[in-house]
């Protein structure tokens, strides 16, 4: 008798939890206590790392220090160039009447647990709702995109990785802007590009970057490198396999990207106002009078979807005209100067990309928000 009551209760709970948000507070209260267990089970490893760093030999530390210094120098050198490129990018975007980009804020989070279910690729991080994390927030590591936040708890959150079978992300080939959707396969080293035409210009070694079309991930972050392209005449589409650039099952420190919640228009307006204010002070660069009026919405034609690929390579306005109208899709239109922009400023924002610019398939960034 009791079993019947409990079974009915469980089923009712499941239905309510799947359909409504009624139980969210209950869950978050319970997680406050229970998620400590992930922290506790992570403790031995943390202790081990602490001990290892305590007793690391001097020579090792010196060598590591040396290496880090070199790396830092290299990165700072690249940063100098980045500042100039960012500035240039902003100016060129203004010439194109498209909205300016905004720097994204990032915050470091630490991995504290893996999902025990071996069939899903989810991880637990030590930042939660109280730290300002929001649902659907993109998560990076040092090398590329990792996934997005799918469940919020007060001090922890659950992140769905790119390689989960329920996850897909809109990407584009960095070399030529070809758009595609990369879906997870359940293998931590493998993504698959779905529905890529057999004649599409994509080849081994191509870098895939996020295109920002799903309105979920910011544009321009590296996602994967193409590992193999199989043309099977028996299949309607080419089989394209890629390896995620992020170390999905090795990274311990992750970056949470805080992109602001404003719409593209608001951002454009604010950027324009800021620019006007700058011009009035006389400190700004001399720009042809194409500063967009606050009410002016960038038209889709002026906002090429492949914008992030163009500006860094293009020094002259002639090359900056959208070499690739948004209508030519898979026809392998190579922009004249589209050498893969050596250092893509990771600050590019999908500000200009509006839904009106016809995303190839208007798939959301992820299908499985929650299971």
């Amino acid at each position, binding site marked *: 008798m009791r079993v019947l009551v409990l079974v009915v209760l469980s089923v009712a709970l499941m239905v309510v939890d799947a359909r409504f948000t009624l139980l969210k507070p209950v869950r978050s209260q319970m997680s406050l206590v*229970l998620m400590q*267990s992930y922290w506790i*089970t992570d403790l031995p490893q943390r202790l081990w790392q602490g001990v290892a760093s305590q007793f690391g030999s001097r020579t090792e530390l010196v060598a590591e220090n040396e290496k880090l210094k070199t790396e830092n120098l290299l990165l700072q050198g690249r940063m100098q160039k980045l500042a100039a490129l960012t500035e240039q990018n902003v100016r060129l975007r203004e010439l194109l009447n498209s909205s300016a980009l905004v720097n994204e804020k990032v915050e470091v989070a630490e991995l504290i647990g893996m999902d025990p279910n071996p069939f899903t690729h989810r991880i637990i991080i030590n930042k939660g709702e109280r730290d300002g994390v929001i649902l659907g927030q993109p998560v990076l590591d040092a090398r590329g995109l990792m996934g997005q936040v799918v469940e919020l708890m007060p001090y922890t959150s659950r992140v769905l990785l790119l390689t989960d079978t329920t996850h897909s992300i809109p990407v584009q080939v960095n070399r030529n802007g070809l758009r595609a959707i990369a879906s997870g396969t359940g293998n931590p080293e493998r993504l698959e590009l779905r529905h890529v035409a057999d004649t599409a210009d994509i080849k081994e070694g191509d870098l895939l970057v996020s295109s920002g079309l799903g309105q979920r991930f910011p544009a321009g972050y590296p996602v994967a490198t193409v590992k193999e392209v199989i043309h099977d005449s028996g299949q309607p589409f080419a089989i394209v396999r890629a390896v995620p650039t992020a170390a999905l099952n090795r990274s311990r420190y992750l970056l949470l990207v805080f992109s602001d919640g404003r719409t593209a228009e608001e951002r454009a307006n604010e950027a324009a106002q800021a620019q006007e204010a700058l011009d009035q002070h006389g400190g700004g660069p001399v720009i042809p009078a194409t500063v967009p009026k606050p009410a002016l919405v960038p038209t889709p034609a002026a906002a090429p979807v492949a914008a992030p690929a163009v500006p860094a390579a293009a020094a002259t306005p002639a090359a900056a005209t959208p070499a690739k109208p948004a209508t030519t899709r898979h026809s392998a239109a190579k922009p004249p100067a589209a050498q893969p922009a050596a250092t893509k400023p990771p600050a590019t924002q999908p500000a200009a990309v509006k839904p009106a610019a016809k995303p190839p398939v208007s798939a959301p960034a992820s299908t499985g928000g929650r299971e």
Partner: protein
Amino acid sequence: MVGTTASRNGWIVWLTFAIGMLLSVSPLPQFMEILRPLWLALLLAFWALTMPQKVGMVTAWCLGLAEDVLYGTLLGQNALILTLITFLVLSLQQRLRMFPMWQQSLVILVIFGLAQLVQLWLSALTGNRQPTLALVLPALVSALLWPWVSYGLRGLHRRYKIT
């Protein structure tokens, strides 16, 4: 439920449950994740066999809810599974206590296998279908572990005279 007035050393039972919960989220190497035993279900089965008047389906249900929060599944999914396991164990209790250890293991294998199949079905309902029947492997591992868990907990039970 444990913790009523007449019980003695009931906290030990809860301690084992807490440890079981830690074990069920502890990090394992990739190839072993698929073999992770159903720790909570094992503990529940033992305590339900030994002290059916204390540990019953309500306990199982509460623990299941906790597991749901830990795993991020729908609230009630694991609660349902654990309740079913405890129900089956309790209804076979009279016979199970008489069985030799290997026979107990066999019964545990069947019960946990059934539970894992229900689990597979539920996760298919929620759109997260696992591609293989490897889901039954944890049941096998749990059945193999049953004798050790059982001996260990029995020792604990005698030593502290838990009632």
